[in-house]
């Protein structure tokens, strides 16, 4: 891409907000080097934003955490906003989430703050044109990897994110269009969520008594999302499981795994987790339920329902097909 083009059509960050990160679907096939997957915390919202723009599933977007974000478009294009409703405005007029919007040269988009949810996704037609690092643009601050400057930095004021502008000619010939995510596909980020999980009864897992206690306590004692949450993991509070009293030998871990550290407060691993870990695993949260957890603020009630792999597989394959996720 020429420098000229990147200067001509770009999104200029005016205020980056709390943490705004460039994210594509993630960095896969690198975990044996200790490099995490990263990718959008709320994969469901991210995939819908690309879908309604007709983008490739892996097209880079901006993940805005909790708002405070402001940016200006230098050329006309089409955008989509999905995920948490961070009260977005375009030139100070409120705009709807879970749909596309056309923007003009000089338009300013803002996200203030959330009533519910944490992460909003700002997708743009064809995706932001950023060169990948190790085949992904996803930003991992801890690993100093990816992002606009290929150093893991979060977005900052003055950053220019290139995109492919719609030519004026094309703009004249087509009417502005809007694509809206069907109502029944838009999740409600509630104050209470239920997560399906596959219990792990292997020798690196937990015994049936501990798993039963986990399920029962999560339902009856009011298990909640704690204040200790970030892109690596969400620590839960309100359940107190007995010290598993065993160290397991560090092994590979994935998004959704529920670790049980010595203090008995489970941690659900999220997109930027480390690649190996040495805590026993209570099980793994259903892939499709992680989007809801990712959007859950501290204090949200969480209960767990045990399921088997067979109960989840068909639904997940259908989801990958629908969004045309190829890996």
């Amino acid at each position, binding site marked *: 891409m020429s420098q000229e083009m990147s200067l001509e059509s770009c999104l200029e960050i005016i205020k980056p907000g709390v943490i705004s990160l460039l994210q594509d679907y993630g960095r*896969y*096939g*690198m*975990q*044996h*080097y*200790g*490099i995490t*997957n990263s990718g959008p915390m709320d994969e469901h919202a991210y995939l819908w934003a690309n879908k309604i723009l007709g983008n490739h599933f892996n097209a880079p977007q901006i993940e805005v955490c909790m708002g405070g974000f402001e940016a200006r478009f230098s050329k006309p294009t089409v955008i989509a906003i999905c995920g948490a409703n961070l009260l977005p405005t375009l030139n100070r007029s409120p705009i709807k989430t879970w749909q596309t919007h056309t923007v003009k040269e000089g338009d300013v988009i803002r996200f203030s703050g959330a009533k519910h949810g944490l992460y909003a996704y700002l997708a743009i037609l064809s995706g932001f044109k950023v060169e990948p*690092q*190790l085949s992904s643009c996803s930003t991992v601050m*801890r*690993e*100093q*990897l990816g992002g606009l400057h*290929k150093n893991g930095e979060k977005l900052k004021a003055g950053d220019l994110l290139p995109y492919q502008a719609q030519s004026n000619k094309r703009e004249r010939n087509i009417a502005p269009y809007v694509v809206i995510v069907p109502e029944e596909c838009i999740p409600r980020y509630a104050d209470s969520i239920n997560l399906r999980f*596959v219990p*792990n009864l*292997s*020798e*690196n897992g937990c015994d049936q008594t501990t798993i039963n206690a986990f399920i029962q306590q999560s339902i009856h004692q009011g298990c909640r999302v704690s204040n200790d949450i970030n892109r690596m993991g969400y620590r839960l509070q309100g359940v107190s499981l007995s010290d598993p009293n065993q160290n*397991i*030998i*560090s*092994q*590979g*871990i*994935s998004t*959704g*795994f529920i670790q049980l550290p010595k203090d008995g407060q489970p941690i659900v691993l999220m997109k930027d987790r*480390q*690649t*190996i870990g040495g805590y026993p*695993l209570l*099980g*793994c949260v*259903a*892939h499709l339920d992680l989007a809801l957890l990712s959007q859950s603020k501290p204090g949200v009630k969480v209960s767990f329902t045990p399921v088997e*792999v*067979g109960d*989840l*597989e068909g639904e*997940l*394959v259908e989801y*990958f*097909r629908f969004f045309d*996720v*190829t*890996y």
Partner: protein
Amino acid sequence: MKVVSLSENTLVVLFDQTISRQTAAEVLKLKQLINKELAEFVIDIIPSYTSIHVSFNLRKISHKSFVEKVETLTQQTRQTKQADLQQNHEKNLIEIPVYYGEEVGFDLHQIADKSGLSIKQIIQTHSDKIYDVFALGFAPGFAYLGTVDEQIAIPRKETPRLSVPQGSLGIAGEQTAIYPFDSPGGWNIIGKTPIKLVDYNQQSPCIFEVGDSIKFQPISKSEFLKQGGEL
């Protein structure tokens, strides 16, 4: 050795849960088989001390079929003779230059005090051995190597350093490792390598993989500086 389903698209193969060269040889063998036979289905593979974690592509294969394929390869690994496991011809041997100087090996004196060995003996004991990469993680390119001679095995420091310089070589218990980046850390530092272990701009961003053999090559201060090392 057994295959355990963990989620819709992940499984783990658990080997005998004791850290040993034999288990490491089995892990390497199965890793090679999976990479050779099942590459088209695999998204990520994370071998570790006594396990191999695999995530796979559900759009290409069902959970059940993938588990069966891994079980077959696990069976094959189990039947591989000990001698063949130990003499794995595809095993890489990587030499890493290290300057074991006191100005970069902050904890050499402490190990000398504890072990009763001279610094020269510590260096020789550490660099004589060929180590296995047992696991990789904690940070990109951080390789857990084992096992160090028990004479120089020393527990992690009680108070970790706030910053350990990139390239520092440390010991914790019977394991030894190089910090690929500046980071906080509690390992006992005995030297430093001038070479860069992680380069995100390379197709293979890290020098090591689990199953590789590592030999440390002691170098002089002038050689260390010549190779770009920083004191």
